[in-house]
């Protein structure tokens, strides 16, 4: 569990054995199925910490559960089992009503879709003032000041030029900045950024990523950066967690996870990063086809069906996330042969 690094900072979020499943509904099967259908384990027994002040990257392909994990942290979904605690001991499962509303002063989120995540009938000012209004903070002029500061902080300058605009008058990048301003106006401690640049033009991604980095460096904002893109993560994050089919397969400091990937899935991901050199002849990846239909119920490692190095034990037992060295944990029997033997038979 130990992701390494200085342990001075207290964890802002502590997750222990968190699980979240959804009822799987195939098109036809869903029509006729009665009662309990198959379950998809979006988040399957995940434990980790988010440390104060860090940017933690959560990497995975679509369907890996990374977005669900982010949504659990802002209680847009409720976890089925395990525990999720905020820094001061608040239990996310127990939050409701007023306590939940106040929790949102500390934890905010920005969304992937800069078009869908802003009410088309709200002006920029309406959008950013909304959290202050729902939290009943400040009077009209105090709110105006805070909105202006948030817009400025998010790079929408000068704020007055934007305040009365409607979302359709903004570009995709400006909308995402608006989304960030809305999240920052309450001055939260933790920001969940769910693929904030994946729907943006490549040319403006760097601006948004720099903005996030700056919020972390200057204001000590803790960020959970959810993405499928390993290359942006390396640039932005202090630590990286790699998720595969609802489980963490590797977790550690960003450079180590990327430069010294241990888990076969992490290696395959890394091998998929495009190299901007037409002369470079990359060795073919060993990873096979992703078996979409592979049963998730199997007791073994989720990656065993695809893994080029799968051993017999991989199909029977699921490896646990364990340190391979300081600040770097991996869930793979290749790197923990003792685990494989100890519990076989």
């Amino acid at each position, binding site marked *: 569990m130990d992701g390494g690094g200085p342990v001075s900072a207290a964890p802002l979020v502590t997750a222990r054995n968190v699980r979240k499943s959804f009822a799987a509904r195939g098109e036809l099967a869903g029509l006729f199925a009665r009662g309990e259908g198959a379950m998809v384990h979006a988040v399957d027994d995940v434990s980790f910490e988010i440390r104060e002040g860090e940017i933690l990257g959560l990497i995975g392909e679509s369907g890996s559960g990374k977005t669900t994990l982010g949504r659990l942290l802002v209680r*847009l979904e409720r976890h089925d089992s395990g525990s999720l605690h905020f820094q001061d001991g608040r239990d996310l499962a127990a939050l409701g009503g007023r306590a939940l509303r106040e929790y949102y*002063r500390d934890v*905010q989120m920005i969304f992937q879709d800069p078009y*869908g995540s802003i009410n*088309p*009938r709200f002006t920029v000012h309406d959008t950013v003032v909304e959290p202050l209004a729902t939290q009943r903070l400040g009077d009209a002029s105090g709110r105006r000041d805070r909105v202006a500061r948030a817009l400025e902080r998010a790079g929408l300058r000068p704020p007055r*030029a934007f305040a009365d605009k409607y979302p359709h*008058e903004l*570009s995709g990048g400006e909308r995402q900045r608006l989304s960030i301003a809305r999240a920052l106006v309450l001055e939260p401690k933790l920001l969940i950024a769910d693929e904030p640049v994946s729907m943006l033009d490549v040319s403006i991604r760097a601006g948004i990523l720099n903005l996030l980095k700056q919020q972390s460096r200057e204001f000590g904002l803790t960020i959970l950066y959810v993405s499928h893109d390993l290359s942006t993560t390396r640039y932005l994050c202090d630590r990286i967690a790699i998720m595969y089919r609802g489980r963490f397969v590797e977790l550690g400091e960003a450079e180590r996870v990327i430069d010294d990937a241990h888990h076969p899935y992490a290696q395959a991901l890394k091998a998929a990063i495009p190299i901007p050199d037409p002369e470079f002849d990359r060795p073919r990846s060993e990873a096979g086809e992703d078996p979409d239909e592979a049963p998730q119920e199997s007791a073994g490692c989720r990656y065993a069906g695809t893994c080029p190095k799968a051993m017999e034990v991989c199909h029977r037992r699921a490896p646990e996330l364990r340190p391979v060295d300081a600040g770097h944990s991996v869930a793979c029997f290749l790197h923990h042969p003792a685990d494989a033997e100890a519990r076989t038979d």
Partner: protein
Amino acid sequence: MADAGTPSPPGAAAPRAPAPPRALRGWRRLWQPFAGRHLAIASLVVLAVFVFVGVFAPWLAPHEPLEKHYQDDGRLMRLLTPTGDFWFGTTLYARDVFSQVIIGTRSALVVGVITAAAMTLIGLNVGLVAGYFGGWVDSFLMRTTDVVFGVPLLPFAIVALSLLDRSTWWIIALMAMLFWPITARVVRSQVLSLRERPFIDAARISGAGHLRILYRHIAPNVMPQAFVHGVFGVAWAITTEASINFLGFGDPYTVSWGTIIYDVFTSMVSFKAWWWFVPPGLCIIIVTTAFYFIGQAFEEVANPRLRER
């Protein structure tokens, strides 16, 4: 951008994403449905005339609508053809048709607008709550909607009115009670898709409760559709009220287009006195058609898929 009224900041001139249908503000936004639609503009002009007549009806009507007119020799001026004094002629009871039509305009518009407003109010709220909360709330409200939808309007109104007071207010109430399912269904279907939009999640994360999400975030986005059906509702209400009055189940002491035609019919002079029933009949047709065209214009804006060009 010209309507934004704010100067563009420097550096904001970068190429923008293709603009989605523009949400205009204020009067421009209200005018948008009419731009280039001649039928809708003509309907608006016609309607303006009727609204003017309705508002100033008591001052515009040359005679009291129920006043009987006598000739010098004391005989009733029954069934006069249109003249300079009685523009639309007189009724069998020697009353001025023109004055009756003018006073009837006011009641038609009042009945239409109040019914439509009540229908929209009920339908909007039922649709919002059903679509947003889903589950058994949705099932209950939508099954109720289905039941009400199945009630035949005129037979129900006739039975109800023969048990109740024959007042225009009851007619309005009955129509509103039967019209709202249309709005409710349209609104619900919109809410079902709106509630899945990320900006609703964003509102939730800002700490907004259900009421705030429903009425500040979702309702303004379904208002155009509800409004369109409200405009159609005015037309339905005017026709229905006229039908109820024509059948003789309305308030006998009010003057409306429906009661005028009822009088013609019951006095059995329909084939002789064309001036008596043509004016109210035409008014019903013209006003309801105008509302339909206007509603259609709004509908094409609210639902771009209907646009033909």
